[in-house]
């Protein structure tokens, strides 16, 4: 295992020890599952994946981009985002759900194009 792997993993475990599973709100079995799957997916990630995601985000509409920035960079709750944008809370959840799915598909297309090209 690489130094980065060991360091990053230790950071994560330390973080978990500090904060405890209560603040995470997930069962330890679920956490283990998530950890195992993320480990197994390691080879799929890299600079190409990151570039693809960045490219997809840059191609979003201004409204979609604003919503994502407000939620994830502005660190606003979905309720606050709903007030800012002037839509209902449930609509925010629906929009975010759709945007995350669209981004996933977009990334897959870009990565396939890269492999094909």
């Amino acid at each position: 295992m690489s130094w980065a792997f060991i360091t990053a993993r230790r950071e994560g475990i330390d973080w978990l020890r500090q904060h405890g599973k209560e603040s995470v709100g997930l069962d330890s079995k679920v956490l283990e599952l998530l950890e195992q799957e993320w480990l197994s997916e390691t080879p799929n990630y890299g600079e190409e994946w990151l570039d693809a995601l960045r490219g997809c985000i840059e191609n979003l509409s201004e409204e979609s981009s604003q919503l994502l920035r407000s939620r994830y960079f502005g660190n606003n709750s979905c309720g606050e985002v709903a007030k800012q944008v002037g839509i209902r809370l449930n609509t925010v959840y629906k929009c975010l759900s759709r945007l995350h799915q669209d981004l996933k598909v977009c990334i897959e297309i870009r990565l396939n194009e890269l492999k094909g090209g």
Partner: protein
Amino acid sequence: MEQTELHHELLLRYLDGNLSPVEEAEVNDLLGRDPEARAFLRQVAEQAVTIADMQRTEDNHNLALEMEVLPDQKSNPGQNLSLRDRSDNVWERWPWIIATAALITMIVNIFFLAQQSQVTIGQLTGSSGWLRWTGDDGQVFDEIEVGSRLGAGTLETLTANSWATLKFVDGSIVTISGQSVLTISEKEQKGLYLREGSLSADVAPQPKGKPMLIDTPTAKIEVLSTQLSLDTKPSTTILRVSEGQVRMTRLVDGSITEVPAEHQVIASINDETALVAQPRPEPVNWWKSNLPNEAVWAKPFLPYPHKKKYLHKKKSPHKKDGSQKARPFLIVTGHISKYGSSLPVVLTPDAKFRLRGWIESDTNLEFGISLRDLKGGFVAKYTAEHRFASVEKERENLDIELTLADFKVHAGKTSHTLIGLRISDWWCRSSDQVKFNVSSLELIPAEK
């Protein structure tokens, strides 16, 4: 609606902290049995981190363009890594973390719970004396360097001769001086909490409906765009407005007043009269202390070495020969204003200070003053040194007069003449561990 979409929305509500206990159990059940749900949660975390990282990079790039990069940072970009720098590096290598750490909880929670601490709110653009920075993660740094980028946290100027200037990303400039404690935050709008001390601010236009909020123990102040200064003690806040208009709320009774340009207002917990802004008074040029009532026995000028941490590059607290810097034994400090801290006191040509008291034995005594312009903006700190030799120990042996020519700039802008500047506070300290007291301090104009 498809079941998958319902699941996704449930997970987004989980990340939003918007679930009932029953729904939390449902999320655990869903994630335990459904690989697709776990994959979605990972996607959201990864995408969220990337979006925030891209925006942060863009903001920091803009900040860097706006602010001059320090020469040593230009030439040695890798040598002055601050805590913030290190944090940014963590984000820059986040794909490594995602790819290798395999802990969605870390990513999700670092992002969702600790994201605010990663955001650069402003930069330290000037300082002198001892400062302390406490980040919102609780880390304490007893020394921070000019150029350090700061997120949410608390900045303290620890001693009478300390000051620090912050430039916010939007261009607003805030200076604290003397023994001051300022907490900064920014979520939807800028929030400052001046727990004690002095602050001057030149506030850039704030977004509509999101004024900068400045809280003190006794008042709440809403600022859209203005120049102002504040002096805060536990029981009193004095607000002086030079430009623009500011709204102040007195916390003790909820009274609200609008403070226009060239006006001031005092919010005190002991004041039962109406909260009314008054025109700023004409300055006076004579002042005499009311000691010992207005004196403050100040903290030592050096922080405790075992608590020392550095936000920027490390500096040795020791002299080159290995010995530790001498710690002054006594410091006394006080504010300079007349009649209930309301009349500004300014320096006039040929004015002089007369300082009387008692000193234990031979030593250098440093007398310092903090200067502001008449609008309230911090200008500089000046000091004058006086050497005592062969002092008599039995009586009041300290009686000196200091002219303005005796003062040298200690920190701040050096091009200003002292004439016409307002004195906000003073301090006195011995250079050795020598006891002294100040029984009287007076500013005497030339004609008096």
